[in-house]
Each structure stands twice: as C-alpha cells, then as structure tokens.
C-alpha cells in the first residue's frame, strides 16, 4: 500500500494506467451494448433499466460518452504517459509538485467513484453534453454526474499546473526550449489548455448543479433562463477539451515517427509552434458546435472561418511527419504501426471536420452519424491509437519487459480493421440522414448498422488482444534493454525500468532526435552507445552536442 502514498511520478503514472484501463473497459462495455442494440431495428436488448428500452439506450450512449470522455480520454495520455515520461525526458527526478500529482490521482479516483455511483443510482440519459433544459428536468442522476465531472476537472487542472511548472523549471541547464522532445511541447500546450479551460467547466457544472437542485432558472426557459447560454458555457470548455485529448497524441506520434524512421524530426520548430497554435486557436472556435442553435449568421461565419484555420497547424504536423519518414530507415514495429495508423486516421478525421466546419454542409450533418464518425476518428482512431502506440513504445521502459511483437502486430491489425469497419460506414449513414442518439432507425439504414456493429466486435477483440499482449509481456516477457528502439531522448539513457530517482548520473541536454550515437547490439536486443574509437574511427560525433556519457564540453575530433 505504499503505492497509495507514493510521490514517485512513475508509480502515479502506472496507477493512472490501471485506472484508465478499467474505465476504458467500462466505457467499451457500454459501446458494445449500444451497438448491439442497433444491430436490429426495434428493441434488441432486453429492457433492464430505465423507463423504456429507448431510454435504456439513451442511458447507454450517455454513460459511454461521459465515462470515455471524462474518465478515460482526457487523462489518458497526459496522466499516464505524461506523468511517466515527462520527468524522464526532462532529465529531472520528478515533477515539480509530486504531492499535487498524488492529489490529482485521488481526484481522478474520486470522480470515478461518483460515476460508478451514478451507474447504480438512476443512471444518466442526457447525453454526455448535459444540454439544458432536459438535464435540469430529467429524473436521472444528473447531480452526481456533474459533481463527478467537477472533481475530475481538478485532476486535470492539477496535472496541468504540474506540467507547466516542470517544463519551465526542471530542465537541465543546457536543455533549452528548442532542445526538448516535442512531446514536451505538446504536453505544455495541453497543460495551458487544462488550466484555462477546465475552470470554465467547473463553474458550468456548479451552475447546472445549482439549477438542478434548486430549480433556479439560469438555463431553464420556463423560469426565465437561457438554454443557449448553457451551450456556450459548456462548449467553451469542451472544445478546448478535445485539444487536451489530441495534442498529447500528436506529441507521442512525433516521437514515435522519428525514432522508428531513425531520422531527425523534420521541422522541429514548426511542430513545436503548431502545438501552441492549436492550443490557442482551440479557444476561439467553440461556436461550431452551435451552428444550428439559432445564433446569428455572422457569428456562425466567424466561427466557421476560425475552425477551418485550426486545420492549418494540424496539417503542418502531418506534412512534417511524412517528411520525417521520407528516406528514413523505417522499422515497422508495433508502435510505428500505431503511429502510421494515427496519421491516416487523423487525416480522415480532420478532413471530415472540414465538412462540419462549413456552414451549409453542417446544417445537413449536424446531429447525424457523420458527426459521430468524425469525432470517433479523431478520438479513437487518433487519440486511442496514439495512446496504444505510446504504451507500446514506452512499455519496455515502464516495466523492464518486452511485449511479444508478433501478437502486437496481430492486435494492431484487428484493431485497425475493426475500427474502420465500425466507423467508416457511419460517415455514409450520416450523410444519408441517419440521426445520432436514436435508439431505432429506418429500415434503409439497417445494413449500415449491421456492418458497424460487427466492426465494433472486431475492434473489441483487437483491444482485448492488446490487453492480453501487455499482460503476457508483464508476466513472461523477456528482459528489456535500456534502449530497445534507439531513441535519443533522455528516458532512453537510463535503465528499464528507471531507478527511483530516474538517473544515476546527472543527464544533460542532447538533441533528442539525433540517433547516430547508438548502435544495435544483438545480444541484448537493444541499442547501446556507440564507442567512436572502437566502432567507427571516422565518426567524429561533433556537431556541438556532447556524446552521451561525456562531460558537456565540445567533443574533440577523433580523426
């Protein structure tokens, strides 16, 4: 039980991992249930809770959305991979505020308890967006859910505060801003969004809670309130929230693409600044969730323009990744498969977002399956894939064991195929008019739902295969070397798993994307530091950076 009072960021990251995997399973169960409901028209599943089988369906999609959004995908990469890797990549012994980190974990547990309570006490059927006035009048347990999301918001805020202070303060003296790994830039931008946007959600939920408990009338038009005001409040947080989800994923992808192409990342500064640009732009586009809410056409046009401009920094990243891969020596291991899958699926998700940013097509697509497919492409196809890829990438570092590569590839194949089967067809269904959040559908949509549901089963099998892969790796995997992939960021310069205070000797700043200093060692199945004299007499190793392990003075020529 020393883990529950630990201040070690690595342990906190692993506890988060256990937690988010459980909530992912819970959200996934709801997803499979709701897809199964939709495999046939009319009622499919027995009516177990709620007032009717339709309201049972409403509860399933609400709980799927709320659990996945609040409990899984917002914390996933920052709290699991970020907590583990950030201090290591910065060459630090821990994050800036370890006790805040532990508090953030407890807030997450608290929020999770609230949502479990919601499950057993009335459920929730408002949709994860809690739109008023339905959320102020429905008999499901909205108060507990809002309190749960409120507590989870603190988890997010504390992580953000921690990361900002860590990135500003804990870098070694010779690691400037532009020598950090790009994952740090991504986490920094994410942290900025977390501290600016989450408090607005906090106040929104508090006001909703007050409205609900005391029937006040801030949002309820029957009492003089304004339901569109709730939407503005809600989306002012929730749009930046989706950038909290995607920015760390973009950072993880930058890392993986570069390492597995064994080539320096192309356009470092562009990628770094594009992370900041996405964070900033993300705050001024919330109105694109409200194009059909009756707001003025002028504000609609402005939001539409701003939304399309967010595509620019995202596209910059995609092109830079492709340029990184060009003429690199690509190694198609499991993390790379996930990263390449990410690029493909994120591109689809992003391009379909443009259809939704365009006003005339959005009128047609709003509240249809097109939207559902779009956000699943960016949340599951992109963020989840990056999370899985990142977990595979840092698995040996976290646990000191290697997973089985063959099973990793099989799991990836199932996940990729299952995901696309499930969601690609939904674009078509949506554009032909299938509305979202409907328990039933017209007969012409039947085959779309059948394909989608069967795809979801394949996806579920694939994800269980991933879990099996990890568990087998933990139990029976071979010893992992310190640097199985040949990366040069600082976490690979220490043991797998790292010692308690992360490094045995003070690390100093290196160019995280220069791979020349490592060579493959077959006996440990990993990379080791190249010895210039023994391995390659002509290698000078000099372009200003000290070789790892040497003091920070300019390296002498080894001619």
């Amino acid at each position, binding site marked *: 039980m020393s883990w529950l009072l630990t201040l070690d960021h690595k342990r906190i990251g692993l506890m988060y991992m256990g937690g988010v995997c459980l909530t992912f399973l819970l959200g996934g169960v709801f997803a499979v249930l709701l897809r199964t409901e939709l495999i046939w028209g009319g009622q499919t599943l027995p009516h177990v809770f709620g007032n009717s089988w339709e309201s049972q369906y409403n509860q399933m999609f609400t709980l799927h959305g709320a659990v996945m959004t609040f409990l899984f995908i917002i914390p996933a990469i920052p709290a699991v991979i970020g907590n583990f890797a950030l201090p290591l990549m910065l060459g630090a012994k821990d994050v800036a505020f370890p006790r805040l980190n532990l508090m953030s974990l407890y807030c997450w547990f608290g929020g999770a308890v609230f949502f479990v309570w919601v499950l057993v006490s009335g459920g929730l059927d408002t949709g994860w967006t809690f739109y008023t006035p339905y959320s102020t009048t429905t008999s499901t347990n909205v108060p507990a859910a809002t309190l749960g999301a409120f507590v989870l918001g603190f988890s997010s805020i504390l992580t953000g505060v921690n990361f900002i202070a860590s990135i500003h303060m*804990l870098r070694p003296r010779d690691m400037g801003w532009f020598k950090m790994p790009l994952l740090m830039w991504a986490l920094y931008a994410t942290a900025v969004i977390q501290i600016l946007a989450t*408090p607005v959600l906090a106040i929104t939920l508090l006001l909703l809670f*007050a409205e609900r408990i005391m029937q*006040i009338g801030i949002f309820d038009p029957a*009492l003089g309130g304004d339901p569109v005001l709730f939407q503005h409040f809600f989306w002012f947080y929730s749009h930046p929230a989706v950038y909290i989800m995607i920015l760390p994923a973009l950072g993880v992808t930058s890392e993986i693409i570069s390492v597995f192409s064994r080539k320096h990342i192309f356009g470092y500064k562009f990628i770094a600044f594009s992370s900041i640009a996405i964070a900033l732009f993300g705050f001024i586009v919330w109105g694109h969730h409200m194009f059909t809410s009756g707001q003025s056409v002028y504000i609609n046009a402005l939001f539409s323009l701003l939304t399309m401009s967010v595509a620019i920094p995202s596209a910059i990243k995609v092109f830079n990744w492709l340029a990184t891969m060009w003429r690199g020596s690509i190694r198609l291991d499991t993390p790379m498969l996930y990263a390449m899958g990410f690029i493909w699926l994120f591109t689809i998700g992003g391009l379909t977002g443009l259809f939704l940013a365009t006003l005339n097509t959005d009128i047609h697509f709003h509240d249809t399956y097109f939207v559902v497919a779009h956000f699943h492409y960016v949340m599951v196809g992109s963020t989840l894939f990056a999370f899985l890829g990142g977990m595979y990438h840092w698995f040996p570092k976290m646990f000191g064991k290697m997973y089985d590569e063959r099973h990793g590839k099989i799991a990836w194949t199932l996940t990729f195929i299952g995901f696309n089967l499930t969601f690609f067809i939904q674009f078509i269904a949506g554009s032909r008019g299938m509305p979202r959040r409907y328990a039933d559908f017209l007969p012409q949509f039947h085959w779309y739902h059948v394909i989608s549901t069967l795809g979801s089963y394949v996806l579920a099998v694939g994800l269980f295969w991933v879990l099996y892969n990890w568990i087998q790796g933990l139990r029976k995997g071979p010893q992992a070397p310190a640097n199985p992939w040949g990366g040069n960021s600082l976490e690979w310069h220490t043991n797998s798993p790292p010692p308690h205070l992360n490094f045995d*000797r003070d690390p100093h700043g290196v160019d995280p994307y220069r791979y020349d200093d490592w060579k493959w060692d077959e006996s440990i199945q990993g990379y080791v530091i190249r010895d210039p004299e023994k391995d390659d007499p002509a290698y000078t190793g000099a372009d200003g950076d000290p070789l790892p392990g*040497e003091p920070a003075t300019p390296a002498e020529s080894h001619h």
Partner: protein
Amino acid sequence: MSDHEPPAPQDAPETPDPHAQGGGGSAHGHDHEHHGPDHLAHHFDSLEQQTEANKLGMWACLVTEVLMFGGLFLAYAVYRANHFPVFEYCHWFLDTKLGAINTVVLLASSLTMALGVRAAQLGQQKLLLVMLIATFMGGVGFMGIKSVEYSSKFSHELWWGQGNLYYPVAKKNAYYDKTVNENLGPDQPRQAWTEADRTYRIYELENYYFNYKKGVDWFTPHYIPPEYRVDPKDYAYHGGPADPPPAPAVSVTAPSASARAAADPQDDAQHAAPQPVVGLAGMTSSDIGSPAYGPSGVSTALGDVAIEGLEPDHGHRTHYTWDTLPEAERERVHIFFQIYYAMTGLHGIHVVVGMGLIGWLIFRAAAGAFGPTNFDAVEIVGLYWHLVDLIWIFLFPLLYLIH
C-alpha cells in the same frame, strides 16, 4: 568508453547503465546528506529553483481561479445586458454600506498579508505572527459581515432558488406543496401562493428597503439618496404598514391594461389586448420570443433600438419598483439573487479556504518554520489572498453599485 560486457539477459535484474564507467559525473541521486536544507525537496537542485517553481505553480492556480470566476462574471454580464431592469431593481436590496466595509476589511487584510510576507523575508518572527493573525481576523470580519448581510436577506425571504419571494407563482406552488403542505394534517387547509399574496409581500418589502427611515443620513443602512427615493404616492400601496392596501384584483393576470397604460404610456401597444398568464404554467415554445413574454437570451438593448417593455434607460437614473418593472422581467427577479449568491458565495468559500491556509501558516510560524531563506509558503498564500481580495474588488461595484 564502454567497457561493459553485455550481460546474460536472464541473469541481471536490470540492464546495466549504458553510461557505466569510472569517473565522470557524480552519483548525485544517492547523496541525500548533502542535498540541501531540509525544506529543499529532493527533486529540486536549489532553493531558488524550488521557489521559482512554487511561485509559477501558484500563479497557474490563480489563473484557473480567474477563469472560474470569469465564467460567473460572464453569466452576470449576459443577464445584466439582457435584463437590466431586474438588476437595477434588485441591487437596492443589497446593503452598500456593509459591502463597502467589507471591501475596506479585505483591502486591509491584504495589506497585513503583504507586511507578513515582508516580515518573513526579514526574519521578524513576532511581526510575522501578528500580521498573519491580523489577516486571519480580516477574513473573520469579512465572513461575519457577510453572514449579517445574508441573514437579513433570508429573513426577508430573498433566498436563492425556489424559496425566493419573487420566484414565479405557478412554480412556487409546487415548492409549497413539498415544504409546507406536506407537514399539514388532513384537516388543515392547504396553503397556496397566489399572485395577490406575493404582490402584497413585495410591497411590504419595497416599503422597508426603499423608504426605510426616510430623511436620515448617509450612514444609515439602506440609505437611498434623495434623488432616488420613490414617492410613496407612486405606489399602489398607500399609507404605511398599518394601513393595508385594498385587496388587489384577485386574478393571476397582470395589472389591468388601463392601470398599466396610465403608469407608462409606451405600454399602450403592448397591453392593448388582455395578456396571457404571467405565471408560466402552460407556456409553450411559441411563447418564447413573443412580446408579452419578452425575448430570452438576445439582448434587446442595442443602441437606441426601442423594444416595447424593455427600453434602455439612456443614462437616466431610473429606479424601478414592482409596478414599473416590465412584465417580462417580473418572472426573472429571482435570477438576480441566484447570481448574487453564486458569486458572493463562491467568493466566500474561497475566503474560508484562504483562512484555512493562513491558519496553517500561523501554526507553522508559531513553530518558527519561516525565515529569510524559507518563506515560500507565506508568499504563495499571500498571492492567493491577494487574488481573493481582487475578486471582491470586482464583485463589489458589479453587484452593489449598479446605480
């Protein structure tokens, strides 16, 4: 450089450090004795770094607080822009004098807090303790005055939510059924809240607040400057409390068309036809936006555009009463009180949290924990307290000084 031989993978519990070699950097991680003073955390290299990190972390937290209150300020701004008469009408129920005293108290406590930080920096233990206690007392004073204000409102039924006197009549009956009627025996008559009841009580309240001790000076509670006072003959309620008004028409519709037309000629067009129920039972979606109900959400005070029933006051100091309040606004009066309680209540919670933090500092200062090299905690709690003060500085004019 590397003279390690690759180990047998199964034997070693972990792979050797790729940098293992003699000499080189110091093994910093294991040398706890010389790391630094006790209050230097193990993951920081120096006290300066720790102090800078602590301050940055606190500023980041303050930013989150600003954003959270910002949301409330936004709700305030939207409602005030769209329903200005309500805000003008209701803010007279707030006691400006007590609010001003609260402002001075908080400012003074910020001063003592800053002096406390300085005392910590200079190592003046006793002064630090005195200043911290003074700041704490400032918080106590603030909460005390706030409780006086709140209790005076509660005694006049100016609650948040359904208990509020101004809560829409039809909805309030549901509340009565739950709170009052369920405790009555089967023989006792059921109580219901009628429009007439409410109007009478509102007139009583207005008489108390608007005409309290007429003619006395600025230091009296509920002082209203002479130019704002309402002549009692403008009330439908004539005479003093001992002279109850003639029973108003016991109907749940608005005052008669002719009475309203007499009070405000511009309302002629609006009140030419009998108006539907002001209480909102039976409201349908088509009623939203109808002139009788009033638009919801979109501001009507756009420049000089005159919308019936919601004219902007063009800088004239109007002082609304229940009779002159536009119909559409009458059902929204309770929202002001919710916003008031939400803003001041959330602020009050932050004051209490701040007092807790200062209390913790007092304990530590009494034990002599702070000095010229260790005053981080005092400084960052000071930052928090200054923010709490700053938020009140914004709240006070927005809520109390609307006129």
